[in-house]
């Protein structure tokens, strides 16, 4: 079904992600923080908590609460975004919460809240995925008890071909069936915590897409792990 000779606009192979980069500890005030870059998309995340939850009536005596906010800088895109929350940012905030909550051991901090703030500095598609990748690292960095890491990538279909990590140009692809955008987030052990789709695809090909996403998430996991480990310099610096 997948067209083997399909040429991606930037010359990448079908299963090739854009160059990616990760770093933790970039915001001194935060309890945990991280940056994740994929191609031209740059996301940063800061974690504050666990801390006391206000107002008191929102507290949950059985388990802690995770709160995420996602925000795009006005100048992260060509057409300026007015500062402040939008419907889209509110939705993505919620999706990010759902993507991360399953791995957090919330029962270890009842009545408390963990705040995760994601900010997009430069956007070139895949912003929610970059945000989730940064947030997962920031949560680990903050010492939040977590069962596993979460990695996120957008797979897609361009006309009939499955590809990994759509760029903005590819999101605007017009030929044939057009583009199908499939952002997925997975734990390292392979469970899917976030899954969305916009476009047109048969279920068999969708399963193919999930397999490709799994492999990409493993690559992303290695970079997230390295960023966390590298931030501790075990050797004495000269």
């Amino acid at each position, binding site marked *: 079904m997948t067209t083997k000779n399909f040429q991606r606009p930037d010359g990448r192979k079908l299963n090739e992600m854009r160059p990616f980069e990760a770093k933790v500890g970039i915001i001194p005030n935060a*309890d*945990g923080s991280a940056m994740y870059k994929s191609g031209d998309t740059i996301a940063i995340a800061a974690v504050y*908590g*666990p*801390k*006391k*939850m206000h107002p008191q009536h929102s507290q949950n005596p059985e388990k802690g609460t995770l709160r995420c906010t996602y925000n795009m800088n006005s100048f992260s895109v060509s057409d300026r975004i007015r500062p402040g929350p939008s419907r889209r940012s509110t939705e993505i905030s919620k999706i990010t919460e759902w993507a991360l909550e399953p*791995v957090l*051991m919330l029962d270890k*901090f009842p*009545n*408390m809240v963990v705040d995760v703030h994601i900010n997009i500095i430069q956007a070139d598609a895949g912003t929610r995925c970059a945000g989730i990748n940064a947030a997962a690292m920031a949560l*680990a*960095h*903050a*010492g*939040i*008890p*977590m*069962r*596993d*890491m979460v990695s996120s990538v957008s797979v897609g279909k361009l006309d009939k071909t499955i590809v990994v990590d759509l760029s903005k140009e590819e999101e605007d692809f017009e030929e044939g069936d057009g583009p199908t955008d499939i952002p997925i987030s997975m*734990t*390292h*052990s392979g469970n899917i915590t976030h899954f969305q789709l916009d476009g047109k695809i048969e279920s068999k090909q969708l399963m193919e897409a999930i397999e490709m996403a799994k492999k990409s998430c493993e690559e992303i996991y290695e970079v*997230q*792990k390295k960023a*966390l*480990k590298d931030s*501790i310099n*075990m050797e*004495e610096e000269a």
Partner: protein
Amino acid sequence: MTNTEHKRSVVIPGETIVEGDNYLPGEGTEKQGEKIVAFRYGLAEETNKLVKVIPLSGVYQPRRGNIVIGKVSLITFNGWVIDIGTAENAFLPLMETPRFVSKDRLDEVMKIGDITVAQIFGVNGRGIDLTIKSRGLGRIDEGIVFKINSNKVPRVIGKEGSMIRIIREYTNCDITVGQNGFIWIKGDKIEDELFAKRAILFITEKSFMEGLTERVEKWFKENGGVKKETKKYDKEEEFGERRE
């Protein structure tokens, strides 16, 4: 992970530290089948088959016996509510002061905004109970108070207080380390206080290092520190944490 008893390596949540039936899951880890898996980001350590993760970050867990430093946030009819940086408030009852305090004189002893050194004598469902009855506890009158990551406190104190002793020797300052990460430094000269603070911040940056005590002595010498005549401290004050 190697078989060496005390070798430590950085682990992230979800990472398998060791595999094998006879390992036991300690703090920060969970047993999943035959694997010991980390659920905290930190340094994995194995001693006598007990595997645990020493966290490098994360919120302070209050424990009975801990010395803490906090700020008075509220005065009630029978005591002071103290904020020690935990979700639950800590409470210092009227009865837990060294001298008698009458009910209408609470704010003369400590007012809102005052900082105090206290000891936790109970942690229960209702909150954290504090006392300032023993020596070395009570309202802080002057000096510098600042916060570090509470996970680094054991390194600042050192084994049997070895690290804190070095800082005192080179700066001649009184240093009280709260287990909740707040540190109080009081010296005769402000330069000495700031020197001590810089030393402590240096320790927090290198907290994962082996041989940190020697490294800190070296740091002091490199930065013009000179060992001074120290005051005599009794065993209790050295540790910042009272033994049960």
